[in-house]
């Protein structure tokens, strides 16, 4: 194999592995983008402090879920 061909294969492989690394970071960015895009509008102080309202009413928060998670993590750690 000529030295030029070997060098070309080397560049090709290094490009492919770079592409693989970039391809793997994409889902992370997509997931964060999706979460921020859909969820940012609902993020306010109410979310952390209030309990959920009954189905159909606007507003309310997720305080029970957050406190429950914290208690569980605190016990486990």
């Amino acid at each position, binding site marked *: 194999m000529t030295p030029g061909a070997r060098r070309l294969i*080397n560049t090709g492989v*290094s490009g492919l592995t770079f592409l693989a*690394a970039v391809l793997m970071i994409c889902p992370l960015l997509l997931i964060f983008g*999706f979460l921020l895009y859909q969820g940012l509008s609902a993020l306010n102080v109410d979310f952390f402090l209030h309990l959920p309202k009954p189905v159909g009413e606007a507003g309310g928060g997720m305080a029970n879920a957050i406190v429950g998670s914290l208690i569980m993590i605190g016990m486990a750690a």
Partner: protein
Amino acid sequence: MAADGIVGAGAADRLSLPPQTVSRRRGAVGDRIYRACVQASVWLVLGLAAGLVFALFWESWDAIRAFGLRFLVTSHWDPVAGEFGALPFIYGTLVSSLLALAIAAPLSLGAAIFLAEFAPTWIRPPVAFLIEMLAAVPSVVYGLWGIFILVPWLRDWVQPLLGHVLGFLPLFQGPPYGIGMLAAGLILSIMVVPYITSVSREVLLAVPASQREAALGLGATRWEATRIAVLRYGRSGLIGAILLGLGRALGETMAVTMVIGNRPDIAISLFAPGYTMASVLANEFTEATSDLYVSALVEIGLLLLLVTVMVNGLARLLVWSVGGATRSARE
């Protein structure tokens, strides 16, 4: 105690001993208590694991006695009539995990080779960090993202295209639901990628530098040095990394449950919905009405545990064989 073992010294009393032996005797009691506490915690953890396996056997004993080996080879899952065959779940688990590996293994190995060999030094920490952040996303968030973003994309773009171009293969036939084995395999592959990448990178970095230098010294390009010296040396460790990813994929529950369609059927097509062992446990455990039903579900859990433990154990052994046990303890 140590002094009692000195031969020929006669009766050893406190004043005739060297100073360090005296302080060793005084601190010995504290050392023994500490050692007992640490050993107790080890036995406690092992006991918990053994208790878990025992409890699973105990609960599933009714189903094991009622069905025996038929449980593993029949596909009739009928809770109303009391007929339980677990073959669709075993099939679903294996197919989704193998599909995930087929997608994730080449990409992860490529990224690991990039991080260990080709990347400039300044780019390695951020890229490695970002890839490992994939492991920090909770499984439920993956499922949510799957339902809202991945499944519509599959249903509207990917599956029609695949059915059009590769529809002669039985793998790509059937209506493009979006939700099904393909979605589950894709999400699992994303979840498995950080594990394979980080362990593979450790394995590649554990290869002695002399191997790489010898190949480079003989005139190899960077890729040739990697292929000849590093990959061949770390081959068993890389297989171990892939098996670790398999172990993770086998047990993954929430993300798969949300996108696999939950239909207890065996279908060749990747577009069709399926069911995995972990999904059936998550979905049906709270609604299991009869004792035999609960027992059959616990038997599925026991099967899953045994398979996952075997795969993970084999993976650990392979990874340790490359870098030594101390290296993997850093993970």
